[in-house]
């Protein structure tokens, strides 16, 4: 009898493992992440250091975007320090960036948020994804700590009534509308197939596109789903192909969109691929290879080369990190300056004073003038459209 039971033990364990599978792939990465938090000992408020948190995924499929955000913030912190630090009252402080990894996972996002709160940071720039920013915003709100996301575009993020949640990019109500209008007016599409990766961001954006596309009189011929870790899209693309859409819209990130574009060409799907900011990166071109030409995509914000100080930023970034700007580093860069500006105006370095100073922000930065509406959304956020031509991102237009 006992032997019988033992015989099934491995299978039972395997089943249990299967259930927790999605998390496990992330476990090994944690240890190797070089979390730069040297100032652990400086927890005493008397030290002349102001800590600013930064959270983004540094492991997993979109680690390159997370690193890009972190680099932007780091560049700003280093500039402020190199210029002598931040003067508050009669004291000068150095800034210290406390960087955490949320693995683009909502659960991990709240853990990382708690770590940031516990580290004694006065404000946080992040998170990258809407799916992590939204659950984390509750934790920052409870701690009374300002959170500026440079890239979370899901409208819900600022609609929860938290006084601490801000973003300096346009939201997906705007972005989705621009994408749907672009499909109808510029691409002259009559039919559209909509796919998403079931994340807060992907699903949210796809839903807005679906709504606006219907208002525009386009026919939504297919609505299919995948997940943010998938690599095989043949089954859903085959289904989409049968409906012969003019445009295939994908709400998701570049790590999945790259292989998806490849599979579209392999299956002979003749439609244009339309996607939001999560896909609009050099990384997509790398992953999609020859198939990258089918993409038209939007970025929530002005194209970096269209910014007045944009090329200067690109050069600085390249010199410091030996890498190319992906998407949102100009925004995380500005977000740090917005926090620094709020600290200066508050004249104090505690969380409550900074949060109180935030709504009055009017900061003239790299990405334009940053000011917030009553919800915490950036005023006059821009959406830029791009298309990929010969493996290069080509700017099309900006909608404000």
């Amino acid at each position, binding site marked *: 009898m006992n*032997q019988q039971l*033992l*015989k099934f*033990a*491995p*299978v039972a*364990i*395997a089943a249990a*493992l*299967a259930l927790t*599978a999605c998390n*496990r*792939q992330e*476990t*090994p*990465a944690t*240890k*190797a992440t070089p979390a730069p938090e040297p100032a652990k000992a400086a927890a005493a408020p008397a030290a002349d250091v102001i800590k600013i948190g930064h959270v983004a995924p*540094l*492991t*997993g*499929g979109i*680690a*390159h975007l997370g690193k890009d955000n972190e680099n932007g913030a780091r560049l700003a912190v280093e500039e402020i320090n190199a210029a002598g630090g931040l003067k508050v009252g009669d004291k000068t402080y150095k800034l210290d960036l406390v960087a955490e990894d949320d693995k683009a996972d909502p659960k991990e996002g709240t853990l990382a948020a708690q770590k940031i709160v516990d580290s004694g940071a006065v404000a946080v720039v992040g998170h990258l994804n809407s799916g992590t920013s939204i659950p984390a915003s509750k934790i920052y709100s409870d701690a009374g700590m300002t959170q500026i996301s440079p890239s979370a575009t899901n409208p819900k993020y600022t609609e929860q009534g938290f006084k601490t949640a801000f973003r300096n990019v346009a939201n997906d109500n705007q972005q989705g509308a621009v994408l749907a209008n672009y499909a109808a007016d510029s691409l002259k599409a009559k039919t559209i197939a909509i796919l998403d990766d*079931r994340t807060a961001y992907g699903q949210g954006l796809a839903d807005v596109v679906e709504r606006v596309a219907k208002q525009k009189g386009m026919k939504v011929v297919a*609505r*299919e*789903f*995948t*997940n943010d*870790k998938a*690599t*095989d899209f*043949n*089954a*859903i693309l*085959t*289904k989409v*192909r*049968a409906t012969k859409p003019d445009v295939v819209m994908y709400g998701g990130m570049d*790590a999945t969109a*790259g*292989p998806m574009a*490849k*599979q579209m*060409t*392999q*299956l*002979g799907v003749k439609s244009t691929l339309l996607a939001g900011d999560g896909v609009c990166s050099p*990384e997509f071109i*790398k*992953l999609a*290879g*020859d198939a990258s030409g089918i993409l038209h995509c939007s970025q929530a914000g002005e194209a970096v080369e269209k910014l007045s100080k944009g090329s200067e930023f690109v050069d600085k970034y390249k010199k410091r990190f030996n890498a190319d700007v992906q998407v949102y580093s100009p925004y995380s860069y500005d977000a740090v300056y917005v926090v620094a500006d709020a600290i200066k105006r508050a004249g104090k370095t505690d969380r409550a004073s900074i949060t109180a100073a935030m709504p009055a922000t009017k900061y003239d930065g790299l990405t334009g003038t940053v000011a917030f509406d009553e919800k915490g959304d950036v005023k006059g956020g821009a959406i830029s459209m791009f298309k990929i031509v010969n493996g290069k991102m080509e700017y099309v237009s900006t909608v404000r």
Partner: protein
Amino acid sequence: METFIQQVINGLVLGSMYSLIALGYTMVYGILNLINFAHGDVMTVGALTSLTTALLLQSMFPGMPGWFILLGALLAAIPVCVTLSLVIERVAYRPLRNAPRLAPLITAIGVSIVIQTIAMLVWGRSYMPYPQLVTNDPINVFGATVTQTKLGVIGLSAVVMIGLMLLVNRTRLGRAMRATAENPRVASLMGVNPNFVIAATFAIGAALAALAGVMLATTYGVAHFYMGFLPGLKAFTAAVLGGIGNVPGAMIGGLLLGLIESLGAGYIGDLTGGVFGSHYQDVFAFLILVGVLIFRPSGLLGERVADRA
């Protein structure tokens, strides 16, 4: 109809790769009663080794034809995977061969994490594009679209699996493997060296994993340090579905799982009137697994094996 044929082809491509990986699980289980959870990660290492080799060959001999580079990459991946697998067997599993069943299982999970971490340290954390070595132009077959890569995957898998069947059923080594699976002690009394047979089993499984890894990476055009994890899990499911320990079972289980996934994603929405969408494709696959295990606990082709002494 076109769509149906296409979905079947999609399923066969996916299923062929599952089958190749599932064989590695099932052969090891058949002989050692061990679920080698590191198997999926051995596949990752194979894919990443082939990626590095392919890039190296491309830069060294720019004019070389793509399929030749691919062959070179595969030939580099196989010995690396085989060596890795033999080292794992020697270091992590052999000392535990007579330990309670749970010990090697937990060790296998540990080994899997170690390999993943090493792969991450060596190849980095981001997704890497796999060079397109064989043309990806669509070819029309009965209204369905395939590429040379996909045809290659299906064809090569079939050849390899037939070869494996011949090896297991017709050769001396195959007979030794079957004997060891049935009863290792009696087999060793008959002059079979169990250590050699077990090592050979691991080596064959690893070679198949290397092949599957190269196929996965070329078909989808990406590679990353945990790419083997989910396919490994699915392949394990396929092995259980077919009857773990049973070689033809793993082949059929893999193909079946691929077909279920692809047809499930393709038709589940229409069949349920839109209540369940294509995001339920995995649920569908695992429901079938649960069903099979309830009604046929030993899997589709599995037979009740006498308890080992």
